[in-house]
């Protein structure tokens, strides 16, 4: 591994960066209108819209909560992670 070159493909599968999270975004499925704004703003591509509702991939969500601040209907709240 001269110079730290990584040739192993797909190391992201085993390196679940969601463990870095201090706060987790929680979607209120009743309030969510499925507009997809949170998905567009998520810097880690961790939000999918399924059946017109937002769903978070907690394996990789680092808890930046940008989704919470851009949600137009305040459907996203946050909870502190317990370690």
């Amino acid at each position, binding site marked *: 591994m001269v110079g*730290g070159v*990584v040739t192993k493909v797909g190391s992201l599968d085993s390196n679940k960066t969601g463990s870095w999270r201090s706060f987790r975004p929680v979607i209120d499925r009743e309030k969510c209108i499925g507009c997809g704004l949170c998905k567009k703003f998520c810097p880690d591509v961790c939000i999918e819209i399924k059946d017109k509702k937002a769903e978070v991939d907690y394996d990789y969500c680092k808890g930046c909560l940008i989704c919470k601040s851009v949600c137009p209907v305040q459907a996203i709240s946050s909870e502190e992670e317990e370690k």
Partner: protein
Amino acid sequence: MVKKIAEGSHAVAEVVRLLNPDVLAMYPITPSTHIPERLSDFESDGELDGTIIRVDSEFSAMSALVGASATGVRTYTATSSQGLALMHEVLFVASAMRLPIVITVVNRALSAPLNIFNDWQDSISERDSGWIQMYGEDSQEVADLMVQAYRIAEDKRVLLPVMVCMDGFFLSHTYDVIDVPEDLKGFVPPYKPEHAYLDPKRPQTQGAWAMQEPYFELRKELEEAVGAALPVIKEVHDEFAKVFGRSYGGGAIDVYGEGDTVVVSMGSVCTNLKVLADRLGFQVVRVRCYRPFPAEDVKKALEGKKAVAVFEKDVAYGTGHGALYNDVRACTTGKAVNFIVGLGGLDVPINALEKMCGEIDAMNDGETRWQR
């Protein structure tokens, strides 16, 4: 080979053209300007195969070379002073990513006050960047060092970036009789990296984030790699001497003359010191390879000597000495003194050097004198 009268910078540019780098990033700065200028001439005349990128700063120049070298091609740039300082951040990236980038540093003083003339503060300030640093005594040696630099940098046992340093104006802007090789006689084979290159069949991540443990290990590996380059530097020097018929001591240091007193220095000031060595009967140890520092060679050269005097054009601020002195000091328990000379291009005439050499006996161990 054809001997011709050439400006130092132009000799470097001609050799670089022969070395055929694929990507050259250029942001001219005094006194390195004549190198990119001449390379641009070659490009306009269709004599340069590589691509010149006209970048918007030296930070961009080094960044462009890191990107290019990471794809697995040969790269080049030249810079001086503030330009090298602006590259600082990226220099550490290049060395730790083990990218064999070669640059010519045309040594110039750092601001402030603004000054365009020669001293070594620019490259000396990058001594801990993990780059190999070689200093040439005359333009012939600098041109030859360029050839050796690519062989060293791209050697599978090394894989490190190299700075070839030449004194600004004294070498870069003066004309000399220079043997510019017409072909490289296969001395520098094409760069074919096995560690870092762009190939969809072998996807890879370079310059990745690393947690504490791998970071620590990679930094330790870098230090080991810089140290391990020393025997390769000597080997390449010796082989170059066989192929091209020019030798510079032994690759790491160049020992000249005989005497109980040893004068240590680097670069073009050594020519006058060698003249004085003949006249006054001392020995000159010229450090060719400053990083990795050839401590064992210097130790051996200083063994049993009466005194050592280090002449240098830089200051390791806060230590009371120059950086070269501090390195040499660690190689001897005997008397060692330091002369800081030529900062900001202050002339170092031979009669001033002679006067300083005459002061060595009366100086105390560890004393530093500033030439004015």
